[in-house]
């Protein structure tokens, strides 16, 4: 509550700063705003930003640092023999004291010394809060005053505001990039721990996947094997099936939309196709598991084939349907980007519509189409829900689409679902799989974007 109030006060003060800055600028120019280097609103923004930004930085830093200091103070006040005990026990005790101070549930008997420590901790935190409020508001006012005093006819407030604005943009993009880096490093770190337990080559080239670690030496089913080849093969099989569905259908509908359909039909059909991309994947998942898979099994039986009820075929076909809009929408865009003059050139030579499309438009748009397909592939590889529900869990190393297979993403899910210890090879394997998946889709995306970019350079 206190924090929200503080934020509100900061906002109100900033708005007042803006208003005062604006007024001061006009009066500095003797009422004639045209004499100012910058518009009065820029002077206002300058004051507001100079007040708010340092205050926010201090606010955030304080929120991060204060609990750490308070904990240090708490530990230093504890009796020496308590301080010197086992670090884990100490951590538990400190946690309990904090809980008591903040009014949460405590896991042990509350005695006088515990209560005293908690009171001490609470008072430290209270003092910290008060200190923060005072410091932040003081800094805010100081910043505002400093900026306010600088207002003059020649003061370059506009340049200052522009600089701060670009700084904020840089900060925002840095956050996005740093987050990505953070994810990569956490993957790398956990993967490193996995490879301490399972040899690298056994993971990448082993043909048996049975992710379990024995608790006792003589345990039944103690045979853990972490060969990921069956998973890669399953992923590949399902992706290939998906591409076999998505590329012909997507490409033909793209050709129809960009070359044959009239503008009105196109305006209707394109969003309708893109709805496919908006269907939640979990809906595709039960569509695959409850409708498509039984259909394939029954038709297979009618033809005398053995189709298991969870088959690579069902998952692949439904995934193919899911990625149709990726192929069709992007291909449609690149084919529309092929200049009309090329079509005219072909027509003027006496080419028919289908000849023009086959021999001129598709080749001209081919890099873009390849890019679209690669993006769809990387989407298919990373897709999880459909395969979890429709492809099964059995790590079969097979090229038969009627059998159940499993994919990298499915295994990551099953490895991490349920009660797990986070230092066994079993759970760590999820991170190694995740890293492989990440590297694959990253490589595909880089290639796809480069291909698309190359194509763009040609016509724009």
């Amino acid at each position, binding site marked *: 509550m206190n924090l929200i109030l503080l934020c509100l006060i900061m906002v109100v003060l900033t708005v007042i700063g803006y208003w005062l800055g604006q007024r001061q600028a006009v009066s500095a120019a003797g009422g004639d705003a045209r004499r100012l280097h910058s518009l009065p609103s820029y002077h206002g923004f300058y004051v507001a930003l100079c007040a708010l930004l340092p205050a926010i930085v201090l606010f955030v830093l304080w929120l991060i640092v204060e609990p750490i200091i308070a904990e240090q103070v708490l530990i230093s006040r504890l009796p020496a023999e308590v301080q010197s005990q086992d670090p884990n026990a100490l951590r538990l005790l400190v946690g309990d004291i904090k809980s008591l101070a903040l009014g949460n549930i405590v896991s042990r008997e509350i005695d006088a010394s515990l209560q005293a420590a908690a009171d001490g901790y609470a008072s430290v935190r209270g003092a910290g809060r008060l200190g923060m409020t005072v410091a932040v508001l003081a800094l805010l006012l100081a910043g505002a005053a400093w900026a306010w005093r600088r207002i003059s006819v020649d003061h370059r407030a506009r340049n200052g505001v522009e600089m701060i604005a670009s700084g904020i943009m840089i900060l925002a993009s840095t956050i996005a990039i740093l987050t990505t880096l953070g994810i990569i490093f956490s993957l790398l770190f956990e993967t490193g721990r996995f490879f301490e337990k399972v040899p690298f080559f056994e993971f990448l080239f082993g043909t048996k996947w049975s992710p379990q670690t024995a608790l006792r030496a003589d345990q039944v089913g103690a045979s853990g094997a972490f060969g990921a080849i069956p998973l890669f093969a399953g992923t590949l099989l399902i992706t290939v099936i998906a591409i076999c569905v998505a590329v012909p259908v997507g490409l033909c509908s793209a050709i129809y939309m960009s070359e044959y359909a009239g503008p009105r039909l196109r305006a209707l059909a394109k969003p309708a196709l893109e709805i496919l991309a908006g269907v939640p994947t979990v809906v595709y998942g039960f569509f695959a598991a409850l409708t498509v898979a039984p259909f394939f099994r029954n038709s297979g039986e009618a033809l005398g084939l053995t189709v298991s009820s969870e088959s690579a075929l069902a998952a692949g076909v439904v995934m193919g349907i899911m990625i149709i809009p990726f192929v069709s929408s992007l291909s449609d865009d690149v084919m529309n980007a092929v*200049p009309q003059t090329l079509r005219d050139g072909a027509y003027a030579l*006496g080419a028919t519509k289908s000849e023009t499309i086959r021999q001129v438009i598709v080749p001209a748009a081919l890099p873009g189409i390849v890019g679209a397909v690669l993006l769809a592939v990387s989407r298919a590889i990373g897709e999880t829900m459909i395969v979890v529900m429709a492809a099964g869990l059995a790590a079969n190393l097979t090229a038969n689409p009627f059998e159940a297979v499993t994919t990298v993403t499915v295994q990551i899910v099953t490895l991490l679902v349920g009660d797990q210890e986070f230092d066994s090879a079993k759970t760590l394997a999820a991170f190694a799989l995740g890293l492989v998946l990440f590297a694959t889709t990253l490589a595909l995306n880089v290639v796809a974007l480069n291909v698309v970019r190359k194509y763009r350079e040609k016509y724009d």
Partner: protein
Amino acid sequence: MSAVEVQEAQIAHDLHKVVARDVNVYYGEAHALKHVDLDIGSNEVTSLIGPSGCGKSTFLRCLNRMNDVIEGCRVTGQITLDGEDIYDKSLDVVQLRARVGMVFQKPNPFPKSVYDNIAYGPRIHGIGAGKSEMDEIVESSLSRAGLWEEVKDRLEKPGTGLSGGQQQRLCIARAIAVNPEVILMDEPCSALDPIATAKIEELIDELRQNFTIVIVTHSMQQAARVSQKTAFFHLGTLVEWGDTQELFTNPRDERTQGYITGRFG
């Protein structure tokens, strides 16, 4: 039609390659071209001039039915090629375009090799079955377009990598590779520098030996340099047409006079 008119029409057909009578073009509601009568002679260069939006390009695109591609476009009247109505239902537009080639304002080579650009037309019309025959067609088309010496060592390089003037000559070579009777040119030099323009103009003059050429141009100097006949369009009507020399030195209509002396347009 009176007997005299029929006779006159017959004479026009005998003397001229392309005869247009009462051609009207509508883009939706807009009446873009109004009652155009124009005769285009064999082995002559006819240039169509006039201010922007006057309908000269529209008329040109009627001659190989490129307007068919444009949605909402409607053509009425009669255009004949060697006495045959090109808007007749029984006429195959693919065959018409093999007989009437076209070169566009902006060079538009296909993103294929120089060789394949030229070979494209012959291939879709089933001309030049063997490799050696096709090689011959490519070489002769490029030489007739005055490009052979410049590109003979880079036939496998993409056509889009040539300079603007070379690309336009490549497009001309591509058009003549199917051996058409008429070549339509829609402001073929407007995207080119003066030297490339001079080369194309020279080429047009040579091509006149074998082809009937209709060229749309913004430059009256160009019309005067390359063409034997000139037609002046204004606001969708054909104001006057005749010998280029005559039209430029002694225009009958004051609108023509105004345009060629630079008072408007």
